[in-house]
């Protein structure tokens, strides 16, 4: 039997333990939000020639915000994505960045490269972490630590994908690469050539004029060099048109065609259709993956886009919003304007070294703003659907 004193001592001890636990948990718990809602600005191209890309990037960010709000928001407060249109104009990008740079905690964009180049120096000067996730390593690293790179270094990331395709085609020795000189695509083309060279395949370049109307002349030029295969580093619509022309000129072996990730966009499939059957493509996510989260995303996307499937770029800003959510929840960020500078740095440092982020397609970790374990998938296209052939790890 326990004595009276022993009982009261045990009671006191339990209470003390509970108090310590409570105190401990309150010490470790993130601070509460002081804002009514978390406003996240998104500098995006909503007008002009690539407005359709801007639309689905905005859609995915809004989708993430909707899901988060359905589940109670961030630290109990709702999230709101505020769109700022930059078109493709650097001037407008700077003006829009100027509107948010002194008041926002973190921002999404800018999109595309011309706007990144123009607006990011201002973000850097004012210390605003802005997630330029749609671009490549070359652009992002210019503005470190005030942004992140969504992809590993281009030469380490794309070269193995091209090499993996070449290994599937052992007799291929000479490849023509169609390259459009736009933004970072020439450096992506160089990475492809490095990858092919690593397995003994020689690459020759045929440049694709940006304003070409027909592609017959380009295909004649390429075929005259008697290649064994083709690689594409140009806009999705042009890829599809060139493949159709290749078919017209009698090219039958589609397995000797590799399309790069940036062309994994809706125009490729709506324009290329059956002509794409058998072609290879590499991308950063596997659309056929059946997780409940991905399924819901895909269904809603299709519902809002006339039944069209989501493409590579459509998930990027969805994941970005979730990254911001986790950063706010895991740190002492409150949204207090008086602590803006310090809280921006907290978010920046957390995201740039986020571990095991649970993306909609895969989990990955960041190290100093660069993904440390993100690879790519090699697919073969059958009736507009990508079938995964292999997962390719980035070179170290």
């Amino acid at each position: 039997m326990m004595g009276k004193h022993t009982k009261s001592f045990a009671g006191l001890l339990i209470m003390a333990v509970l108090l310590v636990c409570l105190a401990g948990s309150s010490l470790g718990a993130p601070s509460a939000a002081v804002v009514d809602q978390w406003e996240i600005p998104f500098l995006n191209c909503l007008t002009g020639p690539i407005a359709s890309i801007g639309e689905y990037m905005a859609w995915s960010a809004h989708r993430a915000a909707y899901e988060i709000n359905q589940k109670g928001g961030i630290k109990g407060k709702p999230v709101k994505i505020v769109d700022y249109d930059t078109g493709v104009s650097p001037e407008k990008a700077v003006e829009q960045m100027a509107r948010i740079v002194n008041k926002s905690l973190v921002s999404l964009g800018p999109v595309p490269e011309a706007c990144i180049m123009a607006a990011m120096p201002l973000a850097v000067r004012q210390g605003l972490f802005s997630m330029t996730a749609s671009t490549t390593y070359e652009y992002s690293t210019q503005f470190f630590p005030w942004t992140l790179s969504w992809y590993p270094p281009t030469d380490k990331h794309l070269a193995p994908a091209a090499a993996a395709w070449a290994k599937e085609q052992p007799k291929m020795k000479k490849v023509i690469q169609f390259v459009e000189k736009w933004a970072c695509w020439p450096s992506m083309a160089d990475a492809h050539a490095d990858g092919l060279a690593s397995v003994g395949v020689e690459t020759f370049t045929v440049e694709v004029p940006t304003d070409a109307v027909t592609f017959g002349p380009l295909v004649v030029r390429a075929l005259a060099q008697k290649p064994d295969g083709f690689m594409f580093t140009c806009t999705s619509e042009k890829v599809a048109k060139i493949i159709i022309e290749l078919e017209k000129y009698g090219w039958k072996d589609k397995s000797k065609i590799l399309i790069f990730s940036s062309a994994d966009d809706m125009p490729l499939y709506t324009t290329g259709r059956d002509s794409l059957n058998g072609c290879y493509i590499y991308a950063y996510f596997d659309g056929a993956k059946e997780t409940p989260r991905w399924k819901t995303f895909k269904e809603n996307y299709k519902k809002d886009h006339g039944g069209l499937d989501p493409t590579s770029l459509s998930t990027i800003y969805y994941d970005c919003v979730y990254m911001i959510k986790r950063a706010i929840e895991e740190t002492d960020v409150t949204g207090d304007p008086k602590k803006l500078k310090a809280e921006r740095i907290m978010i920046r440092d957390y995201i740039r070294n986020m571990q095991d982020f649970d993306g909609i397609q895969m989990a990955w970790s960041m190290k100093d703003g660069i993904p440390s374990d993100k690879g790519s998938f090699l697919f073969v296209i059958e009736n507009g659907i990508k079938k995964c052939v292999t997962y390719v790890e980035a070179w170290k």
Partner: protein
Amino acid sequence: MSPVLYYFLSFTGINILMCWSLYLPYRVGQLHYLTVACMLASAYFSGFAAREWSWPFALIVVVGILIGILICLIPSFAIGDAPCFTVVIIGLTIIFILKTAVENSPALGGTIGFFGIPQVNHLLPLTYLLVVYAGAVIYRIDHSRLGRAASVVFVDKNTAAALGIDVKRLGMFFQVAAGALAGLAGTLYAFLIGGLFPEFFNLGVIGTLMCMLFAGGHTTMWGVIVSVPILEGMQLLLPSAIASWRQVIYALTLIVIVLVLPGGLVTKRMLLRLKGKVSGGISKCNN
């Protein structure tokens, strides 16, 4: 000063210079898009000279202006009195050729773009100092014999020639002056943005500048001083829900203004009337 106001005012100043560079050759009936090529060349030169050679700002401004002048001077020997649309196509052609040259030059960043241009202190007041100076020069030209001769050429080249005006030399003068303004605008643009991307210099820029010039009024230099801040400000004030329709709003605005107010928001007649009222008021006061 808030960044919004700073960039709003800076871009307004630069766009006023660019609109004036279109306004001057239009005095003799020429749509001189070559000025966008001047802007491109001088912006890239300025960026390169500042970053790679650490040239002082004042020297870069002078050389930038000279580059603009040179780019306009050489073709002007052939197109000083050319029909408007020949000048249009030559302008667009040279923009395209220069853009291709930049895209193929690794030293200028190629298609990736050129960044890391150092900042200049007091760029905004310097910009406005230069805008005011350029405005004063244009005002003097407008109110000189050259300005009157240009008005005659605009209406009828043959009459102008019959009156003894050297149409070609006059056209060359206005084209070269436009080149100087565009060269200056290019230099200021490079220092303001801090990075350059060849894709910026495209048809969209020409469309925006034309909208500003024709909405403000192409018959007087004062028109753009009204239209540029309005159109620059419009995009800052548009609610995000309709932000994606900005281009459509611009295009409709221009069509409506050109149809309803043929001379734009500010016309020569309006200025004369205003001048009459002011001088009338002053003489009343004196009496």
